[in-house]
């Protein structure tokens, strides 16, 4: 099937070459980071996790969101999703690979990563995160490969794959729960020490993921002749709507608990995020932008008239995605370190090399997803022709 990735239009190849160039620049910057150390990033003694770990966290959500197409299709027999389950699964594959690459980029000694498996440590959540992410990647590669292969041969997928597909549903929930546990189990960081973190992670995942899938489907409709149709996109929009409502609801619960209780250790982080602390306003405009986008997206999504309009739905989906990215990919991780455990208000902003490496990793993900989508669509097109 892979041969389909090597034949394409001029547009396809231009896109591939742009991605390869970005990956190349990212790789060169990463080599520079390997030789100089993580000191080239904005991270430091107080803010020890930054942009990389935030992107990892955000992308675990995107990966987990595949379950939002798999579950209706396989558990509820929602046939309309037949065309897009494979797109969801391939999106998950690309996202998990990006997650792993971001982790790799964030390690001080990336070549020692295998120590995690050489000395398995069940009391460390990072061990479980590695296990669940690795397992999820294997599941999705296997499922998409087997179902696409069956489709190519014009047959039903073999029976043995069904239980594996069912297994992938709770597994998707587990990857983001474990990722939340990574944070919410730390007594030292009151900002993350919240039981609602895992549910909120899932809510953000199940809104940002389907929103991205809507955008991807629209893009495919424009750039290729592949059209998933009106209904599946509307269904995805409804999923994103409910999940986004839950996300905002959970966020307000967090803010209420922190600010009404007034415990400084909890309240100060939210003050830093939304109002600035000790003259540090770094994230304030971004968090309010995230808030505005959340409100805009909800107005557009909740009102059926707007949601049913595909042009407005594009704006709504982009708003959901960006709102959650700002919240999770920019604010959530570093705010755990600001103020610090000693009550200082350190500053953090990603540096140019840090952003360049991150863009390279995103380009790698985009390349993987492009190639996988190309293969899936080619298989379908050949089916139609024959």
């Amino acid at each position, binding site marked *: 099937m892979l041969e389909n990735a090597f034949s394409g239009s001029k547009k396809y190849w231009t896109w591939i070459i742009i991605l390869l160039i970005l990956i190349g620049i990212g790789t060169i910057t990463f080599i520079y980071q390997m030789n100089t*150390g993580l000191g080239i990033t904005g991270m430091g003694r*107080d803010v020890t996790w930054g942009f990389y770990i935030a992107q990892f966290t955000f992308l675990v959500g995107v990966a987990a969101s595949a379950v939002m197409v798999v579950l209706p299709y396989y558990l509820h027999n929602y046939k309309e999703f037949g065309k897009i389950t494979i797109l969801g699964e391939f999106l998950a594959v690309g996202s998990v690979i990006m997650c792993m690459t971001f982790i790799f980029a964030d390690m*001080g*000694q990336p070549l*020692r990563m295998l120590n995690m498996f050489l*000395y398995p440590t069940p009391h460390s959540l990072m061990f479980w995160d590695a296990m669940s992410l690795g397992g999820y990647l294997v599941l999705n590669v296997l499922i998409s490969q087997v179902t696409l292969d069956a489709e190519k041969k014009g047959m039903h997928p073999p029976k043995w794959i069904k239980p594996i597909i069912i297994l992938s549903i709770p597994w998707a929930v587990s990857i983001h729960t474990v990722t939340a546990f990574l944070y919410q189990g730390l*007594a030292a960081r009151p900002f993350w020490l919240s039981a609602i973190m895992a549910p909120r992670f899932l809510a953000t995942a199940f809104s940002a993921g389907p929103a991205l899938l809507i955008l991807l489907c629209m893009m495919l409709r424009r750039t290729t002749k592949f059209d998933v149709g009106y209904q599946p996109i509307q269904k995805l929009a409804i999923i994103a709507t409910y999940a986004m409502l839950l996300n905002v609801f959970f966020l307000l619960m967090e803010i209420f608990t922190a600010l009404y209780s007034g415990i400084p250790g909890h309240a100060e982080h939210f003050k830093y995020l939304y109002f600035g602390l000790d003259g540090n306003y770094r994230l304030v405009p971004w968090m309010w932008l995230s808030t505005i986008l959340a409100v805009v997206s909800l107005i557009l999504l909740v009102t059926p008239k707007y949601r049913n309009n595909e042009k407005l739905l594009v704006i709504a989906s982009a708003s959901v995605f960006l709102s959650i990215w700002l919240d999770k990919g920019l604010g959530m991780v570093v705010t755990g370190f600001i103020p*610090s455990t*000693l009550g200082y208000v350190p500053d953090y902003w990603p540096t140019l090399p840090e952003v360049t490496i991150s863009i390279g990793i995103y380009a790698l993900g985009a390349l993987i997803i492009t190639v996988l989508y190309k293969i899936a669509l080619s298989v379908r097109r050949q089916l139609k022709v024959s």
Partner: protein
Amino acid sequence: MSIDRRKFLAIAGGAAAIGIAGRRTLKVLAKNVISKPSATLAGKRWAMVIDLKKCRELPGCTKCIQACDYAHNIPDMGNSKDEIKWIWKEKFNHAFVEQENYFVPDDVKNNPAILFCNHCDNPPCTNVCPTQATWKREDGVVMMDWHRCIGCRYCMAACPYGSRSFNWRDPRPHIKQLNPDFPTRERGVVEKCNFCEERLSRGLLPACVEACPVKAMTFGNLEDPNSEIREILNKRFTIRRKPELGTQPEIYYII
């Protein structure tokens, strides 16, 4: 806690349910079921009392820090972002962030406290390490293996005391005076105070304790009821940093 128990827990943890919160839970259970062995039968439990009253007698003194920096090849990175520190000074309100008293005696407020790794009885840093590159020894010293550390910095996120440093850049060119008897580190690994375990094994006191001109630091075995440290703890009221987190820090302060 014996090695066997740790091994047992590692195996038991193979089941996800136990693995996630299990170690803590088992510890709590163990505490309630098994009574603590009498002090005379127990082994060593290293701890330290720092008398800040004595420390304040010599404001501006940095003898303990200098001794540690030399003993452990601590580099001077020249900026706070890349800073490596094992022992350092911090103003009262930053050292004891949970102490929200508005009115504090001037000499307490304006003079720094000496901070370093608390060598907690229940260290959150060792709990989160995915490679067991940091662990608690039988005698309570929280150790680091710089050859195993993958530099994920999870321990730094978990430490409530800011006691851990990461080598953001190559530290070697920044070491002022090289101590050939102690290893240097490479970039990309975490490090912290080791309670001078290399000196303890030779029967010596930690370098900071030895260097203090006013004998403000008392190092000793908590399990020995006749030790000097126990005598001080029995007589003087001491506080610890963030005791409410349940980490059981083993550095005690006389304010």
